């Protein structure tokens, strides 16, 4: 293999692939050539990861193309037929077509989802089935299948499904051009870790293959650099500490196996590690998004934002509208509303409103839909009980949050207690962050049982025997971390107040700008956690 990348922060990607992709693109004079180039680089990028696995994304695209056209043809035939039908028969005709379309949609969704389910979840299901059968007889064991997962399958499958749903609902026109679909599915800056794009938002600007403009180039590169700071300076520097406490998943690449025993740590260290992991995950994932969106901007592509400073959220429900936004939006549009608007749930909502009133009533129907969302959300993150628990944890928190919200509103109406003053807001922000950190502890723990054991230790193990702890970070590392996280916080705060930090920097005089760039690049080069003594960290969200 000529090229091999583990992440978008690989030297191979940053120093070779990306510059070549951009420079050639910028030099191509014709739009069609640029499109072909984007498509070629994207497929090449995918091929580098898994050669034959390319066939899966091609199949997905083929199904999507075919399914879309079929649904579109049914729409056309229906509207043609409606013209010559007397009014009283129209309704019946619509019903017949609706039924047909539903079958077509179900068939193609089954194909798309089927590939994902078989490749990603069959191992988990068979394992659990074996455990279940083991209760009854000792000798029946199914062979546990193990598949190589194509890069980004959890992300591009969602894109394919949203396309089919949207065509079915006539939100978008089906596309005859399979090249356009393929680019939408495989665009290399997004394919590994998202964001999950929508056809109506992204496809056009992608296929438009705009020329590289000076502004897009500099703003895009600026964002790439910001992503590097988050990932290489913050996330990777936190990694040794998190790994020492949690142990777990990088063991295979470790030259020396990390001795994993969380019982060696007092509770407060485990709590600290949970905070560190949450920070690492945020820096890593949002950094990868800065990389993806920055590169997208260079090519003139509009990709949806995936993070909106989530740690300023007042509630868990708000948190999920600001963290991994494209996933939450997907579940909202294709699970939450369809479930809550479906016949039975609607009836339930209606009844509940009559009994419980306007405020609590919708909660009942909403909860059913919410439950579906969070089961899927947990499973999407991975085939494992700790992910399902993670989903249920957030489901319960959102549910409680909704009830508490109504109660608090009544309380403040009666007493005049102000929920919007700063101290209360800060309290709510901190409370939300603590709840998120607890969730991430279970998310990161190697197994659910160990997750509970670690969580328990936080409150039971106070013995501060810290001499033997392998911290993985020293005082100087900590200083760099605090400084960089401080910068991240200030930038976030400014953005939260509506200041456009990015264009402000871009608008400074050239000398200031250059000095700024030089300082930022040297900062990553010097303070980045890479090279001798650091084990490269695989991107966390690429596994999902």
């Amino acid at each position, binding site marked *: *293999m*000529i*090229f*091999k990348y583990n992440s978008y922060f*690989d*030297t*191979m990607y940053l*120093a*070779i692939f990306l510059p070549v992709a951009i420079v050639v693109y910028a030099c191509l004079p014709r739009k069609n050539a640029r499109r072909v180039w984007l498509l070629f680089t994207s497929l090449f990028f995918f091929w580098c990861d898994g050669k034959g696995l390319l066939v899966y994304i091609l199949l997905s695209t083929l199904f999507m193309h075919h399914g879309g056209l079929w649904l579109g043809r049914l729409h056309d035939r229906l509207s043609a037929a409606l013209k010559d039908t007397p009014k009283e028969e129209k309704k019946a005709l619509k019903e017949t077509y609706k039924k047909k379309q539903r079958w077509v949609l179900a068939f193609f969704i089954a194909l798309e989802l089927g590939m994902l389910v078989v490749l990603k979840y069959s191992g988990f299901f068979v394992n659990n089935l074996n455990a279940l059968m083991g209760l009854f007889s000792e000798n029946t064991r199914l062979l546990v299948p193990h598949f190589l997962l194509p890069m980004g399958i959890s992300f591009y499958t969602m894109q394919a499904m949203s396309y089919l749903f949207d065509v079915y609902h006539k939100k978008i026109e089906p596309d005859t051009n399979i090249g356009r679909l393929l680019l939408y599915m495989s665009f290399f800056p997004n394919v590994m870790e998202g964001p999950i794009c929508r056809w109506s938002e992204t496809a056009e600007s992608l296929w438009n293959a705009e020329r590289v403009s*000076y502004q897009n180039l500099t703003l895009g590169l600026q964002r790439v650099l910001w992503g590097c700071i988050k990932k290489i300076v913050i996330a990777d520097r936190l990694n040794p500490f998190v790994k020492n406490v949690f142990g777990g998943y990088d063991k295979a690449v470790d030259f020396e196996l990390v001795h994993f025993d969380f019982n060696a740590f007092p509770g407060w260290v485990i709590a600290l590690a949970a905070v560190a992991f949450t920070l690492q995950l945020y820096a890593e994932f949002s950094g990868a998004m800065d990389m993806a969106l920055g590169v997208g901007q260079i090519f003139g592509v509009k990709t949806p934002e995936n993070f909106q400073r989530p740690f300023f959220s007042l509630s868990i429900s708000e948190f999920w509208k600001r963290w991994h936004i494209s996933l939450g939006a997907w579940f909202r549009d294709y699970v939450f509303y369809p479930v809550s608007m479906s016949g039975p749930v609607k009836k339930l909502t209606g009844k509940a409103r009559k009994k419980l009133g306007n405020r609590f009533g919708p909660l009942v129907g909403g909860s059913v839909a919410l439950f579906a969302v969070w089961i899927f959300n947990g499973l999407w993150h991975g085939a494992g009980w700790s992910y399902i628990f993670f989903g249920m944890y957030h489901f319960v928190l959102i549910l409680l949050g909704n009830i508490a919200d109504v109660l608090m509103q009544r309380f403040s109406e009666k007493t005049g207690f102000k929920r919007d003053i700063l101290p209360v807001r800060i309290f709510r922000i901190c409370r939300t962050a603590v709840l998120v950190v607890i969730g991430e502890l279970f998310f990161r723990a190697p197994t659910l049982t160990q997750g509970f054991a670690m969580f328990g230790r936080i409150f039971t193990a106070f013995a501060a025997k810290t001499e033997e702890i392998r911290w993985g970070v*020293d005082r*100087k590392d900590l200083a760099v971390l605090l400084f960089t996280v401080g910068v991240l916080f200030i930038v976030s705060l400014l953005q939260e107040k509506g200041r456009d930090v990015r264009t402000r920097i871009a608008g400074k005089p*050239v000398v200031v700008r*250059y000095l700024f*760039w*030089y300082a930022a*690049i*040297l900062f990553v*080069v*010097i*303070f*980045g956690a890479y*090279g*001798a*003594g650091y084990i490269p960290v695989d991107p966390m969200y690429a596994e999902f």
Partner: protein
Amino acid sequence: MKKHTISFVIFVVGLVGLLVLSGFVFIPKNNTAEAGILDVGANGILGEPENTIDTLFVGDSLAYCAFMPLHIWEQTGSTSYVCATDLQQLQYTVEMVEHALSRQTPGVVFMEADAIYRDVSAATLLYSKIYNAFSVFRYHDRWKNLTVKDFTEKQSFTSRDDERGYRRFSDSKPAEVRDYMAPTDEVMPISDLNRELVGQIRDLCVEKGARFVLVSVPSMKNWSMARHNGIAALAESLEVDYLDLNMPGTVEIDWRADTRDRGDHMMYTGAVKVTDYILSYLEENNLLRDHRGDPAYNDWNEALQRVKNKPLT
């Protein structure tokens, strides 16, 4: 657009300059661990006086566990150095040989062949090119220990390794002999890039007037007949000698006693056997020089005494 292009070029030139300059700050000013040099044992050769090393060994951990320069000195008064590092990859071997040959004029360079089967990827090659052009990438982590001297001083290497790159291990874990070097006609293939790199090392040696010899030290875990066949074919195509000490009739390794970790690396007693074999090769080919009695080589005698007085661990 033209204006933008010019300013972009200025920016890049400035950036490259800045990276090179910071490299001067970050590069270690001495070859000691305290000064931040990586691979202290192997880089100890930088502290040896110019043109005093007669024989050079390169390779991975198999090599630094098997070749004993002080033993050669004690027996013959000839000097040698082992530039071997953990999991050495060939592009790094090239660097090691380049550095060594720029200050030393050995008559022979032995290369342990295990590293030839460690595939070098294009990525690794790229990294090492970048790392060599800009030292700041390799030594950036020294920001933790940077002092004022790093900004003002030039490099000067003062540290010498008593064992001359050899690492002594005196605990043994026995290995069970099973299928070791079972005969086969199979030839384990060597990647094109690795072939090319070994060729480069040979050319470097020939250019400096040193004989280049491939050698495999005994290792049950790493060596096989298929690998032997592969390296033998490579040696033939490069027209160099190949000594495979895994082959019967070369060194008699007692696998219950001479290995440090169940057949992977040599321990002290095995290393003596390997080095004795190398000695006989050097003797046969007239590659030994005797420096005993030359006061310029006094440190070798002192090092030998120090090592002998050191308790075995």
